[in-house]
């Protein structure tokens, strides 16, 4: 999982005083809204690295043509968590990976909290822009509690019953006693 620092991000939104500019010029490293992408898609040069920000209400099937192939038109798909308890983007991410075989970067933005990291990773996100007050250290720790899960996911498509569990290191035990005896 890559943690995105917005100050050093290569992708840039194209906004004027009244919000997103309706017809941005082609340029590498543009992060477009879905409306912008729809507006420029037909004239946008192929091969230009492009990112798009999707609302979590979008049926990702509608983007299918832009996601396929060895060199998809979209390099980065940014999915949103307007509230961290709104889980729609997990389904979008999983479908982008498993149904549309999207191979580019899949990034979570919005209210992205430390404890969402295991879910993000397992549904196919490979980048997360944590909410500003969140600790990267705690987020990394949150990724380390479980050695394996029951159901398959994007990272590990096989459910426990299809895996050889004897090879899975029980990382849990090292963490279990981490804070024991501290009155917590």
């Amino acid at each position, binding site marked *: 999982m890559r943690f995105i620092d917005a100050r050093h991000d290569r992708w840039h939104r194209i906004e004027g005083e009244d919000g997103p500019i309706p017809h941005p010029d082609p340029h590498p490293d543009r992060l477009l809204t879905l409306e912008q992408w729809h507006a420029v898609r037909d004239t946008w040069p192929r091969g230009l690295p492009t990112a798009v920000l999707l609302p979590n209400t979008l049926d990702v099937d509608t983007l299918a043509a832009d996601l396929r192939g060895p060199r998809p038109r979209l390099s980065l798909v940014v999915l949103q968590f307007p509230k961290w308890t709104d*889980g729609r983007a*997990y389904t979008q991410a999983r479908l982008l990976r498993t149904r549309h075989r999207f191979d580019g970067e899949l990034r979570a933005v919005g209210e992205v909290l430390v404890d969402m990291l*295991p879910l993000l990773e397992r549904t196919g996100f490979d980048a997360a822009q944590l909410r500003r007050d969140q600790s990267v250290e705690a987020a990394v720790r949150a990724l380390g*509690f479980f050695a394996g*899960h029951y159901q398959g996911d994007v990272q590990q*498509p096989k459910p426990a*019953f299809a895996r050889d569990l004897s090879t899975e290191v029980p990382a849990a035990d090292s*963490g279990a006693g981490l*804070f024991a005896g501290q009155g917590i």
Partner: protein
Amino acid sequence: MYQYTEFDRHFVRARAAQFRDQLRRHLDGELPDEEFRALRLQNGWYVQRHAPMLRVAVPYGELSSRQLHQLARIAREFDRDYGHFTTRQNLQYNWIPLARAADVMDLLAEVDMHGIQTSGNCIRNITSDALAGIAPDEAVDPRPYCEILRQWSTLHPEFAFLPRKFKIAITGAREDRAAIGWHDIGLQLLKNEAGEIGFKVLVGGGMGRTPVIGSVIGEFVPWQQILVFIEAIVRVYNRLGRRDNLYKARIKILVKAEGQRFVDAVDAEFRHILEHDVGGAAHVIPQSELDRVSASFRLPAGIDPSRPAATPRPAADTPAAYRLWLERNVQAHKLPAYRAVTLSLKRAGQAPGDATGDQMDRAAELATRFSHGELRVTHDQNLLLPWVHESQLHALWLAAREAGFATPNIGLLTDMIACPGGDFCALANARSIPVAAAITERFDDLDRLYDIGDIDLHISGCINSCGHHHSGHIGILGVDKDGAEWYQITLGGSDGSMLSGAAAPGKVVGPSFAADEVPEVIEALIDTYRRERLGGERFIDTSRRLGLAPFRAAADAVRRATARTAGAAA
């Protein structure tokens, strides 16, 4: 019972460690209340009126003596020495300080227990028939499928933040004792003419503000594909379920609103997963996995299924109390020489479903002595011993009586369902326990109870319906009017059992009643039934035949106060 593997044990310990980390960050001020909330909920921790409430998962109601002893210990050492068994076959504690929460999770993990997904907007603990695996009318033992589904739903990464809670119930019997029509997904295992096993799948049932009975979305889904089919349903719900209004967020609202479009969307999703998605077919259950899990549910060692029944006729001098107990608390078993015995948690002086630490220990000892160390938590908030040999019944009765579990009232009026209500629950509009106590007191005469016969009385302290008032033959719902407690009474509801008929919500008997009127209203309804019943009619039959009118008139006749907003609730 399912036997935990090393993987399962590591998993539960990892969950306890993860929770300890979250709790530490919360107590250190790094994780504010509103963000800790959803995390603790998915581990069973609510914040109630007096202290946090912990809901411990008892998957499909199966419990071992060892686990129950540990639950007793937690009650004694961390709570005020009791717990409450719920309609969803779980156990709740009410007085554990949050700072000790992680220690309790560690103790639970010691006996392969946890609070995973007993709350929150996720797939909740799966419930089943309390007679699963032992019922004479069972086509297929549902427990291996319950366990496979439990594992699949546990910490599912895509479905941890659904629009609302999501409940699944499974039965494998002809009679529905798991109220499957009332669940977000209801599953009934069937065997077709070719001997193949599959699921009839219902979707969109639920209680709450808008009671709905689930509708059939799959007539016969092969067992191998059930995880994929459920994944399709839950995915469509996660994508399209409403999130703008808490009261319209359950899947039942989506199913109603979309109708055939919902069915088509699920079918399309199901086919996509199986035929197209990367790893899509990975969750088709292989025979080897069913066999592995089923091995945990073989007959307990020492049980001989071929042993014929030799039920001795009770002697002429058998105490009447024993005969009543045999009649009400003992049920037939698929093995002729065995019985299922219910330990009644419905008795004067204690709230329905409550047990002290000592009582939990006593129940665990009875299970060790008489039931191969196994118990079930029933949907009606009692405990059940599934493996009692008929020759042991009398000894069990004596021991159960001594422990206070032998009230011969199973299925009768005082065997009522009640949520903890306003005494504990922060959501409740009104108290349930005093109402239950007043009714128990008024109907304490056994002869009268037996004369009234089979009846389901269900009490909820608020519209969230934890006390399943919608499905009671008589339902009592606590409502708040101008800061006072009132109670709406419904008639003719059904959970879907044979006795009660097809699942249906009860109908409201006029405006709400004041708390102190409720016992009299119940008595008036009962008296109307006793006056009007024909032949062997039970309460539910008479109420269906006559409709609301005579019952409503009888209830109104004892009305002393009327809610100022009378009629608003109807």
